[in-house]
């Protein structure tokens, strides 16, 4: 029963309403007519058993019954009344078409996708006319392509337009979606049909526990032999920043052992090749080393590709290692060198104050007891600036002062805990409200920072002189200043080439989840979750994703398709293959055409038997009701 989703009760109410209308019209039609006639002489001659005594009695009851019965028949026809099991009545099916990356594999002359499309089309054509189907493309996500649709052409067009994606099949999610769609969007759930080879990312045991009683499987034979790239990991050498350690993992997804050649090229130049024999279902890693300071394109390739060529090639871009250029104008460079040369990421250049040039190329400029006439267009650090030319007004010069407090709540003083530091001499500054005080003595701030227009740090004393010279505070202070001015300088870089889909990143115990950022190559933030020091994000499209967590930056070049290795075995309760049309249609008979014919015949009979053919003409005869 359909009738615009009305229930039996609503159908009866509808019939009742229409019947009341029909009866009212019937009574109205048969009420006494008042007519003006030219004479009564002939009427008197024809007069029937005298006057009518009851005005509203039912005359021609057969006419009324015929009308009501015909309307009832037409309503039942609209409701698509059927004889047979209601279970076999018109149903809504969900067609899960596997569009995982693996579907681009070739099996004989055709791809798995083409075979699956043919099977899906055959299923759609086998459906009885009244049935509807929803097409869902299933890979890591279940994406509905059509609503519940009875238009076969639209369904077949949607099937033909389906292409393999980049992710592996999450069948559990797809089945859950299909069940939910049938539960929420239709009262007549039909079959959930999975079309594909059944390579899944789910745990097969978990999937086996899921109950899908109306499942049908159109299995696509999967005899694909493939050994392809699984991952690439690149890390800069700890001792030598010009050395990259490269780890390439390959996996044999086929049923037989395969011998493959794994080659690596940087900017089109081969940097190594290895021959590997990988057992069926096993993974194997190969290590390579690359020495370069330049950035470039690193590509790994597996030959022969096998039946699935999506994972035969992967690439990753190595970033250019550009050190931070720090220009120091000082008459005592030997005191500052140890603090600035500690990191390979910093390239200090020492010059005398008279060599100062405002246009000199530098990321950061340090002025040691020197103030130029025109400051450079760069971030600057001022150490004991001359009182008259200091960028921050000097209030006084204090001697034999004790550094009483570090403002550890800002990043410039992070980790600085040295107490009772004696300063032989230091300048004390006037601090503006927008200034950041990093350290202070009792009489005022001695280290200040400003952000506008360029970042600026001014120190009232020389940290590499006096008692601080041998303290851990000094290199930490310089490190904090350089990191504040150039945040990326001390980042630890990790490069990974992997598969699209869900990526899990181990953040480590010290990582602050609040400071984590995950961005795509276009700079758009990606949604992610952090659970027990593990970050997880998902991407369905190939591309580059950057994960920044503290001073650690991990770049994922997700150029490999996600390939699932687990094979799903359909439950025994599942039906298989294309259903026969006769098997479906034989279980019930459509009654609505006959009901419609009977209803129409009833109305026609009523009109022929009781209708008044002259009624329209009579209306002109000055008749009035």
């Amino acid at each position: 029963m359909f009738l615009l989703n009305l229930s039996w009760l609503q159908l009866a109410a509808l019939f009742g309403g229409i019947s009341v209308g029909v009866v009212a019209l019937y009574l109205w039609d048969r009420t006494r007519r008042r007519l003006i006639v030219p004479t009564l002489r002939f009427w008197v001659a024809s007069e029937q058993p005298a006057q009518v005594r009851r005005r509203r009695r039912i005359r021609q009851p057969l006419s009324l019954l015929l009308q009501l019965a015909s309307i009832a028949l037409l309503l039942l026809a609209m409701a698509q009344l059927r004889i047979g099991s209601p279970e076999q009545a018109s149903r809504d099916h969900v067609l899960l078409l596997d569009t995982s990356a693996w579907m681009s594999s070739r099996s004989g002359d055709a791809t798995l996708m083409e075979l699956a499309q043919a099977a899906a089309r055959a299923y759609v054509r086998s459906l009885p006319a009244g049935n509807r189907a929803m097409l869902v493309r299933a890979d890591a996500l279940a994406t509905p392509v059509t609503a519940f649709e009875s238009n076969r052409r639209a369904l077949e067009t949607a099937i033909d337009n389906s292409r393999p994606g980049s992710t592996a099949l999450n069948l559990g999610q797809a089945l859950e979606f299909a069940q939910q769609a049938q539960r929420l969007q239709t009262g007549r759930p039909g079959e959930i049909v999975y079309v594909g080879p059944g390579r899944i990312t789910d745990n097969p045991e978990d999937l086996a526990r899921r109950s899908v009683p109306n499942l049908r499987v159109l299995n696509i034979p999967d005899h694909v032999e493939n050994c392809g790239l699984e991952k690439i990991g690149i890390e800069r050498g700890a001792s030598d920043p010009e050395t990259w350690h490269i780890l390439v993992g390959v996996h044999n997804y086929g049923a037989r052992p395969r011998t493959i050649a794994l080659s690596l090229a940087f900017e089109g130049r081969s940097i190594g090749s290895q021959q590997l024999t990988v057992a069926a279902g096993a993974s194997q890693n190969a290590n390579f080393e690359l020495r370069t300071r330049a950035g470039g394109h690193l590509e790994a390739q597996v030959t022969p590709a096998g039946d699935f060529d999506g994972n035969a090639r992967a690439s990753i871009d190595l970033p250019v290692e550009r050190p931070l250029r720090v220009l120091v104008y000082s008459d005592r460079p030997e005191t500052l060198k140890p603090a600035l040369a500690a990191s390979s990421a910093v390239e200090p250049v020492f010059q005398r104050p008279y060599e100062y040039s405002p246009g000199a190329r530098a990321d950061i400029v340090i002025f040691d007891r020197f103030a130029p006439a025109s400051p450079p267009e760069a971030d600057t650090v001022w150490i004991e600036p001359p009182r008259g030319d200091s960028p921050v007004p000097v209030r006084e010069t204090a001697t034999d002062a004790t550094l009483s407090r570090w403002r550890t709540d800002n990043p410039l003083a992070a980790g600085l805990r040295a107490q009772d530091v004696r300063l032989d001499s230091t300048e004390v500054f006037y601090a503006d409200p927008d200034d950041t005080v990093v350290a202070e003595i009792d009489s005022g701030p001695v280290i200040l920072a400003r952000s506008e227009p360029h970042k600026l740090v001014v120190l009232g004393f020389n940290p590499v002189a006096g008692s601080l010279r041998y303290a851990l505070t000094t290199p930490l202070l310089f490190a904090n200043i350089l990191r504040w001015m150039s945040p990326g300088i001390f980042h630890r870089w990790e490069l990974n080439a992997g598969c699209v889909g869900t990526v899990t990143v181990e953040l480590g115990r010290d990582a602050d989840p609040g400071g984590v950022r995950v961005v795509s190559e276009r700079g758009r933030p990606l949604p992610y979750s952090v659970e027990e020091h593990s970050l997880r994000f998902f991407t369905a499209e190939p591309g580059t994703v950057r994960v920044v967590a503290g001073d650690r930056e991990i770049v994922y070049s997700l150029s490999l398709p996600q390939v699932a290795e687990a094979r799903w075995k359909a439950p025994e309760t599942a039906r298989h293959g294309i259903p026969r049309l006769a098997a479906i249609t034989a279980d019930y008979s459509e009654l609505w055409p006959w009901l419609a014919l009977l209803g129409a015949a009833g109305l026609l009979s009523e009109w022929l038997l009781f209708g008044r053919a002259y009624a329209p003409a009579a209306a002109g005869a000055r008749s009035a009701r």
Partner: protein
Amino acid sequence: MAQQPLIDRTFLEKLERLALHWQKSFPGLVGGHNVSRFSGPGLEFLDHRRFHAGDDLRAVNWQAYLRFEKLFLKMFRVEPHTPIRLLIDTSESMSTGAIPKFDYARRIAAALAYVGLVRLDTIVMHGFSGVLAEQFRCGGGRHHFSPAVSYLERLSRGGRTDFLRVVRQFISSYSQRGLLVVVSDFLDDQNCEKALELLADYGHELMLVHVWAEEDRVPPWEGELELSDAETGAHLKLEFDTDARGKYTAAFDAYARALRRIALRNDGRYTGLSTSMPVEDAVFGPLAGMGAVA
């Protein structure tokens, strides 16, 4: 909205070749195309006869006297006009029908008047219901047709039919016998048969044009009916079905036959016209068929 003319020009052109015919010979009266068998004053020479005392000297043929020395009198064909009178029913009963009988009757009357005027007949028209309405008279010539149409258009319907009274009034008004065309539904509760007989007895040739609406003869209604007489206002409640309809139609047909009988018995003519039949078809069909026009 402009009033539709009673008869359009095309139809009038078709009427040009027709003439009204009557069967009776009215003593001393001929007219139009009917050649007189009687001598009398006129323009067309008929014969000579001997002069008798008292004859009009102006008719003496003096040339014949000079030749034969006897008085001969010239006789001429008399040319008095046979009056053609049309009575058009304007009673309230003529207003019923999907196509009002009143309009239909006026069109028929206009067509007959035109035929008569074209043939130089004298036409007299009267509307009537309970009494005779204002008279319209005109001599021959199609140029008199426009006043005739104006008269017909001025007629207003209403009133209760009283044929006997109308006939008496007519007889008293017109002693000269002639062709009398009655266009009516002949629905008079006091029986119009007697009145028609009276007209015939007075020597008028009756041409009865019985006009009815289709539902006057075969009522389409069924079920409980409450009827009002258009003229008398009398009420009747009855139950009408197929059998009753048959009886009704039989009674109507019997009445029509009775009218026909009256007409034929008095050397008159009768035709029944349903308003569903176009006026042109009626003129060239039933009216021509009964010899009223040819």
